[in-house]
């Protein structure tokens, strides 16, 4: 139990080295990878999200915790693959066409990954066609799009339209975010959800999937 709580604390405190060491020790002691994820790592990231919401943590802390989570996942992923286990939810994320800003998108990706989702990051300047191709190929449950500029926001609608045209829109939930984006805009363009920050994005993904 104390190894699991070490892992929990390491992630909560954003200490990648300790998270890696605690994971190694837990595995050596016979812990099961998926249980480590579900019982230590995801609760730690949930707590990180809670601390962010109450402004005790800020974006830098989110990222440090995400980094600690990743360092633990590096050890667990090969074991999960070997055991034929997959993460339950797959998310595709990208910054829309014409927009090269990726910091916000990276933070959301990190938080989603930290919350136990499989995240496929398409990067920045992602065209509607690239989103469509990725949805066809990877069959995600959720598509997240980010835009930092008012001039690139219309690419979100173009992407949603492209998903409709390709007959894929009903297969995925679409979540949008970025500095100029609002919930009203999300409604206007037919997105399923909007979040103003990374922590909220995690909650919104969970909410959308629960309602599906």
């Amino acid at each position, binding site marked *: 139990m104390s190894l699991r709580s070490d892992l929990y604390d390491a992630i909560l405190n*954003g200490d990648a080295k300790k998270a890696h060491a605690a994971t190694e020790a837990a595995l050596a002691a016979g812990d099961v990878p998926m249980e480590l994820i579900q019982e230590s790592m995801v609760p730690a990231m949930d707590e990180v999200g809670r601390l962010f919401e109450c402004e*005790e*943590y*800020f*974006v*830098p*802390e989110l*990222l*440090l915790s995400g*980094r600690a989570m990743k360092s633990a996942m590096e050890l667990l992923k090969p074991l999960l693959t070997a055991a034929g286990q997959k993460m339950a939810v797959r998310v595709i994320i990208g910054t829309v066409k014409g927009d*090269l800003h*990726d*910091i916000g998108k*990276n*933070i959301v990706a990190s938080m989603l990954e930290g919350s136990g989702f499989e995240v496929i990051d398409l990067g*920045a*300047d992602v065209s509607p066609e690239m989103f469509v191709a990725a949805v066809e190929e990877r069959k995600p449950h959720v598509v997240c799009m980010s835009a930092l*500029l*008012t*001039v690139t*926001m*219309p690419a979100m609608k173009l992407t949603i339209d492209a998903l409709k045209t390709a007959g894929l829109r009903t297969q995925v939930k679409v979540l949008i975010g970025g*500095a*100029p984006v*609002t919930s*009203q*805009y999300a409604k*206007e363009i037919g997105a399923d959800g909007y979040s103003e920050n990374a922590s909220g994005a995690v909650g919104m993904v969970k909410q959308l999937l629960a309602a599906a």
Partner: protein
Amino acid sequence: MDRRFYLDLAARGLSMPVGTDLVMHEESDPEQVRNDGAALGRVVERAARRWGTPLAIPLMDLRLEKIDLLSLLGVSAAGAETYHFTQPLDDAVLETLCGEQNGPRCPGTRARDTALDLNRSKDGLVPVGMAIGPFSLTTRLMADPITAAAMAGSGMDDAPEVKLLWQCLHISEAAVLRSVRSQISHGARAIMICEPTACTAFISPRQLRAGANLFERMVMEPNLRLKAALEEGGCDLIFHDCGELIDPMVEAFANRLHPVILSLGSSRRLWDDARLVPRDVVLYGNLPTKLFYSDSVMPVEEVVRRTEELVAGMRQCGHPHILGSECDVLFAPQAADAIRMKVDAMLSCVPAHSA
């Protein structure tokens, strides 16, 4: 210039957006204007005349210093935006990037300087320069600057990410210094230094409360040296940061950088901030112009309401204030008319002034 010049502008009720981008997009080929000094100079002048301000403010194009910096390594302008350093730099690269002499300059930089040259002799205009701040440029040189900064704030000084962060800050400061010296030599009498990433998204208040000196070392020290370089060139500092800030950050900008104008984002309530800011520093802003594109989120009535609230708040606190935008007002093709209408609505909320 004497700081009283800016205080007088505020006292006379000047209101103006940072809106050169909007005016540039009235041209038939805006992208050509961006790189044509003579055309850009005319646009900058037209923007100033339109809003009745002597401050001839250029485009807030914060890509230029990065493009010029990376051109020293042979990176094309087209590739600069997505180029990031991924590992600590060797001494030869550092030496190349930290030199005092300007290397090749991109068309946008040359146009900005030429526009300053052209407007320096125009009646009633004060040519204003523009540059990204050293910290904000640093954050554009790395793929994940926030984690690196957070690691630095946690004392992980030996980590390669942290070493690269400090190196990027060093070369960014050199690049910004080259930029402002060039603009001063072309006639800039004030320069707007933009540090939008010097904010709580990049620098954790939690770490600052725990005693990390990150903000001091990464933001204040380079900007204080920059301010000294401006003073040496007889050029005034206009400091802009539209990021989310905590009070000690605002205080440090206002009191220690002591700009002639402090421009803040719409997350700040300027009439509350007035208590943090010396009375000889004009506050500028700060309507949420980034949302002007949306009639549902920011209808014109809300623009008017917020403007009236801001004007009333500033009158009540009595702090020198120039009403304006929270950042540059960017043209958005799908909402150009809405944005212009709201800028007009914002400006119409204060009595006309004499420029």
